[in-house]
């Protein structure tokens, strides 16, 4: 790692102010991904601004929403009684992430901003359009088992690794940002960008902006939610395929359903057409299968990840069957 400066900020406003006047600076909360990115040469910063003392680490539930402070640790959120009761998918996604140690360290904001695990992105000697725009994407012809079948293109097919982001995407979360231009809120659907021809631009965040909170609306459907994560070893691994699902039925008929997918898209993947195909219909194997086919209609698989086309549909069947009591 190059030598960097370090400042402990005392308030969100101060943190943003310091960032604005310090070139090549970034924020650090847990540092669990940032340190590796800096070691790998995937990122380089001259200055870290410690945001752990800004007072933005609370988890609070009010009438309308759950607010996760950006520096709340993954473990605290996962164990929070309100989260477990009303948003089980969040708790499950968090507990399926990383290791107990890292969950003690890593923050919610940092979790959302973690970078892809693509081996080419993390190897500074390999070409990578995300790391060095225009240098090429070896994953397309190389090893791409962990890569996306949805939302990719000629420039990048890397997946976003966050389980939490998948769960938040299903629940229509909003990300609160503070920057030199003031405060703003971005719906999570708009927060993560498709790679297009600029895979280096992963989120809608503007330079110098800090995530200060994440809001999740209270809905009855969120209380009946689950996270299914499929991986290549029993635990402590990133998803091969994952599904966050929330379901509300009356009788057998789907009143509301929210679905987001991990491991298959270049961003946490949500396709409203899939939900629409299920909503208002009885939840049957047939209906789920049709919805699944819709999900992968535009899939572009590669040699190493072709199986995900089938696996993600089966994962959808599995989680909805469980939630809907079909088994």
């Amino acid at each position, binding site marked *: 790692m190059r030598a960097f400066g370090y400042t402990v900020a005392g308030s969100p406003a101060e943190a943003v102010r310091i960032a604005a006047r310090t070139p090549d600076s970034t924020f650090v909360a847990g540092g669990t991904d940032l340190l590796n990115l800096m070691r790998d040469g995937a990122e380089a910063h001259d200055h870290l601004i410690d945001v752990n003392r800004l007072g933005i680490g609370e988890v609070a539930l009010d009438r309308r929403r759950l607010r996760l402070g950006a520096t709340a640790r993954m473990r605290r959120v996962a164990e929070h009684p309100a989260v477990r009761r009303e948003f089980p998918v969040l708790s499950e996604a968090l507990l399926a992430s990383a290791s107990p140690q890292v969950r003690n360290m890593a923050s919610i904001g940092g979790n959302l901003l973690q970078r892809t695990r693509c081996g*080419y992105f993390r190897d500074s000697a390999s070409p990578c359009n995300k790391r060095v725009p225009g240098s090429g994407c070896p994953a397309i012809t190389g090893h791409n088992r962990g890569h996306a079948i949805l939302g990719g293109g000629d420039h990048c097919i890397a997946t976003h690794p966050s389980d939490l982001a998948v769960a938040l995407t299903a629940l229509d979360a909003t990300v609160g940002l503070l920057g030199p231009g003031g405060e703003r809120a971005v719906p999570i659907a708009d927060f993560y960008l498709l790679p297009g021809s600029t895979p280096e631009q992963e989120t809608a965040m503007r330079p110098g902006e800090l995530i200060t909170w994440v809001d999740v609306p209270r809905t009855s459907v969120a209380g009946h939610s689950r996270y299914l994560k499929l991986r*290549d070893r029993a635990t402590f691994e990133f998803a091969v395929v994952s599904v966050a699902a929330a379901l509300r039925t009356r009788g057998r008929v789907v009143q509301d359903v929210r679905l987001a997918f991990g491991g298959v898209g270049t961003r946490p993947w949500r396709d409203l057409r899939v939900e629409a195909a299920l909503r208002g219909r009885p939840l049957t194997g047939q209906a789920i299968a049709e919805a699944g086919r819709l999900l992968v209609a535009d899939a572009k698989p590669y040699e190493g990840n072709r199986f995900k086309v089938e696996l993600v549909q089966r994962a959808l069947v599995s989680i909805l069957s469980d939630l809907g009591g079909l088994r």
Partner: protein
Amino acid sequence: MSGLVGQGVARVDGRAKVTGAARYAADSEVPGVLHGFLVMSTIARGEVVEIDTSQALAHPGVVAVYTHRDMPRLVLPDFPYNRRFIPMQDARVHHNGQPVAYVVAQTLEQAQEAANLVKVRYRAEAPVARMEDVLDEAFLPDMFRNRPNEIARGDAAAALERAEVRIDRTYSSPMQHHNPIEPHTSTAVWDGDTLTLYESTQGVVFTRNVVAHAFGMGRDKVRVISPYLGGGFGAKGPTYPHTLLTAAAARLAGRPVKLVLSRAQMYTSNGHRAEYRRRLQLGATRQGVLTAIVDTSTAQLTRIDEGIYNGSDSTLHLYACPNVHVRQMGVRLDLPTSSYMRSPETTAHFGLETAMDELSYELGIDPVELRILNHNTVNPRTGAAYAGKHLLECYRAAAEAFGWARRHPRPGTMRDGDEYVGWGMATETHTYGWIESEVGLTIGLDGRATLRAATQEIGTGTYTVLSQVVADELGMPLDQVTTLLGDTTYPSASLSAGSSTMPSVVGPVAQAARSAREAVIALAVADPRSPLHGVPAEQVVAEGGRLFARGDLGRREGYRDVMARHGRAVEVLGRGPNTPGHSFGAVFVEVRIQPRLGRLRVSRVVTAHDPGRVLNRRTARGQVIGGVTWGIGFALMEHTLVDPDTARVVNPNLSGYLVPVCADAPPVEALFVDRPDPESEIALGARGFGETPGTGVPAAIGNAIYHAIGRRLRDVPFTRDKLL
């Protein structure tokens, strides 16, 4: 004899290991030590054209940046240095991740960052990275370490032609990496023309020899110290370039230098299990008697190295088949040289034991029965009957404990809820080696025993087992024995590799302890002040740290009394030859599969092993549970990925290269047929054993998968996509 040998004695180094007091190589406190860090090549083939070190040298704390232009000329050592070149001796690049510059700085952080600042320009040539692109160029390499790569017995081709039943299948396994938790590390300290290395190595003596050879020094001028090793699994068996480069850098810098490889660097610096393709042809009678085995394998080699590290040994000796033809071929790729990795014979054995299962279905014979039918009783090394092979008992014991008799052989017939249950089995076997060893034993004036041997503790329990042997032979409590290992100032003893430590060292240790006991007894009976004075030496027995006159137990005194009066320590050496051989066992596994999601878990494992005499039931069991888990890693997840265009490793880390975690490890019931092998009498009847457990596990899992869902998998790892 106090009867410690055979008992599950707790590890004598346990306290040091659970308190953090055990000093591993990188924990050594060396005054004035500088930190080294390697700059690795980013091309697979070509030449260094220019190295710009100016930015690196300008970084605060940087003492020097060495390149091939600065390095002293070294002599290319023989095995166990297993690469046919030394990096940084010239501009040539043979693989990605080859050292091209060596940074030395005051702190680790400075060295690491300065390494990033070294700018290297290359002339690159297109590498060959994939076996499948060059399979038609496979060739039969020359002998490696005096072993031929083609071995034929009888006329396998003709026998195959005539066979009533034939199996002809291909199997494959990928490149795998050892990944010990402790990274490779070397700290070099020069004092005039003598060199001390604090080294993570499975063999201090071999490392010393290699380094002395490379630097053209006398062996007495090099000392290698490695009291604890944080895992090796073969990765630290051979001596590797980073050790030579660190010694050279320390000499150039005129200061001690410490190098710890990064995890990523470990994927190109210390060998790996080679990728393999294997064609197996079995011929048998309808009754299930094997008449022919043809085993043709192709290994990943490099452009300049031809070592075959994964011998088809079990094909040759496990079953009584008159016609066998083994050919161990290879193809040349622009990758780092492969090497030994825990239980190297697993690679070949996976194919053989899967093919045997396929044959059992072809014949409609139970897989255990098929193996019993073809059981081999002749030791191929001696041509005579094995004196102590109890494999048949292993099959029986493990099958019974597992409940194999309740198995319905038809695939897909055992269900539990939404899970398919599969039961599979395989034979386990591995070769063990013998390496000439000598040990020193001292009985001090305090009556305590100190054993010195330049072999190593690599986690297998060497400190503990050797202490048990000494205590038993001396008739002394365990806490009066100190065992010192891992230092070339001690007598030269075995490399801790190839399951050879116990068969090689136990004999000399027992020998030394007996000599020491006899020497002390001789002192006692000759000393008029001793209560044992005049007792015939053969009438004196030792027990609990004391010597007794047999038949007159009132006449006795402690080792301590004899030694204190004598006033001089008793020092003896022990040595004695043994022979290499094989250990055996059987493994039975249960898998549970949800094919809908491709989910598989290994839910139960029963093993029974025949390692000759069990010296320590705990440490032996440790090898079994470890080996089984390695087999699970081999079967289900381990896989090094190399980019087809650049020949760079894509997953050089423990989140990309998966090894089993706690939740992947199933309960293992480990049974032992615990009978001394007369052929290893010198080692108290114990054979080499560490690498036998796990050899059958990949095949047993594959066989269980077939039993569960009727799908035959022949290419490891058996990942979820193959089970959908």
